[in-house]
C-alpha cells in the first residue's frame, strides 16, 4: 500500500483551476521532489497534502486513511517552511517540543525527544536560544528538528533552502539527504531548483500549469524525457533545441547534415524539434561548426555559446579552453539525439 496517494486531485481558486487532476502514489520511505517553474502549482499541491488548502475534488490518502477533509493536525504530517516559521517568542527547545506539548507529552519525556532530535541535527548547544539569535542555517535546522520530534508519517518540505546562501544550500541539501537515509521517512520536497531535485530525489514529479508532465527517477527524466518541457527543464545548461524537418521516415536534416535516427515509428511530416544536450555534441556523426560568441570558463569544463543555422546553441567543451571567435567542431550524434513532434511530445 502507498504511504501517500493522490487520486484525481484538483484545486480551483475562484474560476482559476491551479491543480488539474493529479494522480500520484508515493511509497513508504520514498523521497519525492516536486519541481516546476513558478506558478506551476507545486507548492499548492504540497499545501493540499498538508491540509492547509482545501481540495476542490479528488481524494488524498495517507497510510491508507482518507484525509481529504481532515484538519492538518489529524494528517500525521510535518512541514518545513521556506521562511522557517519558527515561533519567535519560544526557545529552540520550546519550538521543537511545541507539538509534543499540545499532545500532552510530559515535560521530561518532551525534553528527551527534543534533545534526541537536536543531537541528530547537531543543534544541542542552541536549545535554549531564541530564533532571533540564530543564523539562517541554524533556523532551518531547528525547523527540520521541529518536524523530526513529531515522528510524522510524511515530511513535507516547501522550498526549504531558498533563503540560504549558495554554500549553506549545498551543505543543508547534503544534511537533508543524510537525514532521509537515517530516518528512512517518506519525504516530499518542493523546489524550483532542478539541481536540488536531481541530487535529492528517488523520483521527480515535473509539474506545469497544475498538471504532472512526467514522473520518474532523476536519470530517467534526464536521459529519456517525455516531452519538450521536461527535456528543457531538467538539465543545466538546458538542452539545445533545433528546428528540423523530416527528410525520410527516420531521417532529419539539420544545418545541411542528414541524421539517421533509431526510431520505432516513422517521422511525421511538418516541423519537428531536435534535442541535443550541450555535453552530447561529440562522438560519432555528422559534423558542424560552432563559432563561439561567448565562452563561460568553469575551469574543468567550458560552455561555448554560438548559433547553428541561426538557432542559439550551447556546447560543452572539455580538453581545451576555447576562445571567443574560435570555430569549434561539433558532432550531431544520432545516438544522443531526441526528436519531438509539433505538439512537443517525444517521438521514440
Amino acid at each position, binding site marked *: 500500500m502507498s504511504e501517500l496517494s493522490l487520486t484525481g486531485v484538483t484545486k480551483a481558486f475562484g474560476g482559476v483551476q491551479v491543480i488539474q487532476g493529479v494522480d500520484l502514489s508515493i511509497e513508504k520511505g520514498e523521497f519525492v521532489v516536486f519541481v516546476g517553474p513558478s506558478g506551476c502549482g507545486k507548492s499548492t499541491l504540497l499545501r493540499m497534502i*498538508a*491540509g*492547509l488548502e482545501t481540495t476542490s475534488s479528488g481524494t488524498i490518502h495517507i497510510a491508507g486513511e482518507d484525509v481529504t477533509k481532515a*484538519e*492538518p*493536525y489529524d494528517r500525521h*504530517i*510535518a*512541514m518545513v*517552511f*521556506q*521562511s522557517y*516559521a*519558527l*515561533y*519567535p*517568542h519560544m526557545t529552540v527547545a520550546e519550538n521543537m517540543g*511545541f*507539538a509534543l506539548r*499540545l*499532545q500532552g507529552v510530559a515535560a521530561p519525556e518532551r525534553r528527551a525527544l527534543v534533545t534526541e532530535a537536536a543531537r541528530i541535527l547537531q543543534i544541542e548547544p542552541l536549545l535554549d536560544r531564541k530564533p*532571533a539569535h540564530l543564523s539562517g542555517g541554524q533556523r532551518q535546522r531547528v525547523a527540520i528538528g*521541529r518536524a523530526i520530534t*513529531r515522528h510524522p508519517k510524511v515530511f513535507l518540505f516547501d522550498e526549504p533552502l531558498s533563503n540560504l546562501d549558495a554554500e549553506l544550500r549545498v551543505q543543508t541539501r547534503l544534511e537533508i539527504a543524510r537525514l532521509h537515509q537515517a530516518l528512512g521517512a517518506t519525504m516530499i520536497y518542493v523546489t524550483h531548483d532542478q539541481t536540488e531535485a536531481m541530487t535529492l530525489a528517488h523520483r521527480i514529479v515535473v509539474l506545469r500549469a497544475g498538471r504532472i508532465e512526467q514522473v520518474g527517477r532523476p536519470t530517467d527524466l534526464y536521459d529519456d524525457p517525455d516531452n519538450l518541457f521536461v527535456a528543457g527543464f531538467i538539465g543545466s545548461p538546458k538542452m539545445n533545441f533545433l528546428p528540423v524537418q523530416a527528410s525520410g521516415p527516420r531521417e532529419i536534416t539539420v544545418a545541411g547534415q542528414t541524421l539517421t535516427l533509431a526510431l520505432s515509428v516513422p517521422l511525421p511530416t511538418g516541423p519537428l524539434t531536435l534535442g541535443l544536450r550541450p555535453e552530447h555534441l561529440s562522438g560519432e556523426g555528422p559534423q558542424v561548426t560552432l563559432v563561439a560568441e561567448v565562452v563561460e570558463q568553469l575551469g574543468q569544463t567550458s560552455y561555448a555559446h554560438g548559433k547553428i543555422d541561426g538557432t542559439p546553441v550551447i556546447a560543452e567543451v572539455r580538453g581545451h579552453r576555447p576562445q571567443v571567435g574560435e570555430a569549434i567542431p561539433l558532432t550531431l550524434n544520432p545516438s544522443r539525439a531526441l526528436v519531438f513532434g509539433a505538439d512537443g511530445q517525444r517521438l521514440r
Partner: protein
Amino acid sequence: MSPERRTAWAFLAPSLVLIAIFRIAPLIWGAQLSLTDARGITPGAFIGLENYRELAFDPAFRDSISNTILLIATLPVWVCFPLLLAILIHQGVPGGRFYRATYFFPAILSSVIVGSIFNTLLRRDGAVNAALKLVGIAPTDWLGSSHTALLSLIAVQLWATFGMSLLIFLAGLSTVPQDMIEAARLDGARLRHLVWFIIIPALRPIIEFVAVVTTIGILTSMFGLIYVLTAGGPGTSTTLPEFLIWLELGKLNRPGYAAAISMVLFALMAGLAWAQIRIMQRNADV
C-alpha cells in the same frame, strides 16, 4: 555652528516654539497656580502645598481617585473584548467586514451624541429597561443609582471606543506571519491554542500599546460623556479627576485648587507615559 546644524535648528525651531508656548509654559504656569489660593480671576497668594494637603482630605477628590482605580481595574475588559472580536474577524467569521465597520462606527461619534443616545436608552422608561422587562427583570435606574452609574458609564464609553482598539488589533493581526499560524496548525494547535500560544505572544507589543493608550484615553476623554449622562453624580459616584478639575475651575471658581488636581492627574499621566516608553524600548530590543 556648522551650516548643517543651523539648518537643523531652523527646521526644529517652529515646533520647539509651539511646544514651549502651548505645552511647557502652561504646565509651569499651572504648577505655579497650584501653589496659590487663586479664586476667580484674582491671582491669589502663594500658599505652598496647602492645595495638595487639602486634596488629601477632600472626599470628592478621594472619591474621584477610587472611581479612577475602579475604572483602571476594568482595563482587561477594554483590552480583551476588542482583542477577542478582532481575532474572530481575522479568522474570517462570516460578515467580518460588516462587523468591523459596525464596531468602528461609534468611534466617529462625539461623546455628546453618544451621551444623548444612552441618556434615552438607559433612563428608567428607556429601551434597555423595556427589553429587560420582556425577560422578567425589574427596571433599574442605571444612571441614577450610585451602584450602577459608574459601571453604566464605563459600558457606554467601552461601546463608544472599543472599535478603535479593534482596528489596531486587526492591523496587528495582519502582521502575524501566516506561515507561523500554519506551522502551529500542523503542530496540532486548535483555535484556543493558536490564540493563547501564538497570536497573543505575537501581539504582545500591540496589546501593551492598546492598554497604555486606553488607560490614558479613559482618564482624559470621558468628560463629555460624564457631563451629558451623569454630571459626576449621583453624589460623586461618577466623578473622575478630569471632571473634578472642571467643577473646581468652572463652577466653584477655584483655579488654584483645580490646578493642583491637574498636577496630580499630570503626574499620573506622566507615570503612564514613562511606562509606555519603557514598554516600547523593551519591545524594540526583542
